[in-house]
């Protein structure tokens, strides 16, 4: 295999990994503050992407044609809408079930995911069909030898890295981050220290869902197409990534996201069977990893949680 093709695959893998990471980080954040899995996360991503698309179509129809402005509007609307949706979900579906078994939260969010998915399918105009997503980023490419670096991919990758770094800073350097980490460690102590627990939970859900919105728009820009079912697989992959990395750890989520993308790329390229089996391969490895490291690669410090 020549270098150009190889770097192409690596680039694709990195792009996939970045999207998975954005989803996985959300899972890890929610698990951190509430010890729950919010399974509708992938479908929040879908709704985010569709919100972005609707914004684009709406703005185009009123005559806005400046691409940077459109991109900005798409991102801002998607992020704000999903942050609000995330807070609503936390307030009305997740927090009321705090004292119920963990299975109930898992189920209620799984079902919420179905509701979101079906609503997009049924109520978005022709939502059952795949929708073309506009190319809002420059599509020029730079030739580096045999390797063709597309500018939009590079920009998305850079954005993703910036977001992760920003999140890291937010969690480690700000008062809000301190509050989130405090709640994650011990809810009651955090409360006695004067932290508004509900507010922190809601903000965390807003942040996580905003990340999903970015992931959704990025997905649309990358594939130039979105469909109502994309969130299910992305959600499960993000969940797998968060879990094989180790829940509750941001680095685990990043590791898991890129690992899953690497597995898929490997399954498609390097293994001696049809590339259609790439997901079969990736999920087999996930199950095997779970058998080997039941609490993920970067293990949680408190083993009781498992």
């Amino acid at each position, binding site marked *: 295999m020549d270098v150009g093709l190889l770097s192409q695959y690596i680039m694709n893998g990195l792009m996939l990994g970045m999207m998975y990471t954005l989803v996985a980080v959300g899972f890890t954040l929610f698990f951190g503050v509430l010890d729950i899995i919010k399974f509708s996360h992938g479908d929040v991503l879908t709704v985010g992407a569709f919100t972005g698309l609707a914004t684009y179509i709406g703005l185009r129809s009123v005559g806005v044609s400046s691409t940077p402005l459109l991109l900005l509007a798409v991102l801002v609307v998607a992020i704000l809408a999903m942050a609000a949706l995330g807070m609503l979900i936390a307030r009305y579906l997740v927090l009321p079930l705090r004292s*119920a078994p963990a299975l109930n939260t898992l189920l209620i969010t799984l*079902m919420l995911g179905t509701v979101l998915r079906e609503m997009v399918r049924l109520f978005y105009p022709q939502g059952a069909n795949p929708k073309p997503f506009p190319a809002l980023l420059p599509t020029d490419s730079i030739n580096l030898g045999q390797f063709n670096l597309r500018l939009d991919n590079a920009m998305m990758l850079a954005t993703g890295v910036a977001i992760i770094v920003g999140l890291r800073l937010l969690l480690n350097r700000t008062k809000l981050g301190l509050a989130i980490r405090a709640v994650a460690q011990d809810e009651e102590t955090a409360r006695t220290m004067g932290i508004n627990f509900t507010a922190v939970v809601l903000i965390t859900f807003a942040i996580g869902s905003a990340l999903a919105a970015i992931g959704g728009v990025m997905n649309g820009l990358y594939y130039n197409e979105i469909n109502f079912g994309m969130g299910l*697989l992305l959600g499960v992959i993000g969940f797998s990534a968060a879990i094989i990395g180790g829940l509750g750890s941001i680095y685990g989520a990043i590791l898991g996201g890129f690992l899953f993308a690497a597995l898929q790329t490997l399954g498609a390229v390097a293994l001696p069977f049809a590339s259609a089996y790439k*997901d079969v391969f990736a999920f087999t490895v996930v199950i095997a990893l779970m058998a080997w490291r039941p609490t993920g690669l970067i293990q949680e410090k408190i083993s009781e949680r498992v």
Partner: protein
Amino acid sequence: MSGSERMPEVMQEPQAPVLPGVVAVAFSTAYLIALLAVEMQPLVIGLLAFGIVAVLAAHYMDWLDPVSRSFAEREGVLSAYAILAACVVAAFFHDNHFVLLLFVTVLLYAVATLGLNIEFGYAGVLNFAGASFFGIGAYTSAVLNTYTAVPHLLVLLIGGTLAALIGSLLLLPVLRTRGHYAALVTIAFALLLKTFLEVNDVLGGPQGMQVKGMSILGWSFNDNFEIGRIEMSFYLNYFVISMLLLCSTFVLVRRLERSWIGLNLDAIRLDETAASCFGLDIARWKITAFVLGNFVIGLAGALFGMVGGFVAPNNYTFADSLIMVSILLLGGIGNPWGVVVATFIVLVLPEKLQTIQEYRFLLYALIVIVVLLFRPEGLLPRPVRRYFPRGRA
């Protein structure tokens, strides 16, 4: 009313009368026949509204209490009546292919969900891949009926065994993980299996495969037959065998629950640490429940493949697994009667309400959300275990 408060009283008082239960069964049977028979949408909606109002009214008049008591104490007799009721419904629709197919589907889904109930409800082993094991059974009957001459009853057993065996591959990760991590294992498996079926050309790919109908000792299940002069739908054959399967599974699940195995499983679900402190082998009982549950699901799937005559990956997706979990949850986890009732509700409703057919996944999901928020124990919650059944104490 909690069972523990009632217990002493129950032990002294004479046995609860069987009549309320019989009346309830008779009413449900008549209602079901009416619901299945009407075609016009306004009538269907009217009947459904009537049903809901009737149940609510009965609830407020405290008529449901004697019913549940007679079901709790006179289960044997009432089971016989329930079987009789099912036969009456089937006899009523003896020449109606569509209704009988729906009825058989409900029965087989009830069997599969009972299998899931052993895992979920008793041992607390999460399984979000119910439809996958169902599919393994169905594909087994598709392959075996097409390429071999294995007797079809044996095919059913092989289907169950294969589901149990393939499920066993998941045992190590399922046993080592707990909670969310365990959920992931089966979810990953559900997606994996569906993708595998879709890309595998030998198994027909996305188009799926035809399945030959069942025949036992030369009696072909796919031919209409006559009793006296009355033409019978061939689905009546499948009704009989599905009913047999449901009854035996029901008895199995009920015996299992009542036995010390069920007690062990309950203990493990409620508190693993405490259970292992009392010397229970956690792994052993979890394996038992998981393998047995998958066997039952696979068995139902194998028969379902033959009934439907067709298998395709799209019928065994993660969403279908979620439907099974919804049935379980709606009925009340751990209560086999609840499973049967909930299966009827979940499967018959969208078939009759053609207008909501398109919205069925949305509707199921909403129902489950509402149930989880307002009645997390399900429609028919599992009663408190009775250690001294009448006549054996």
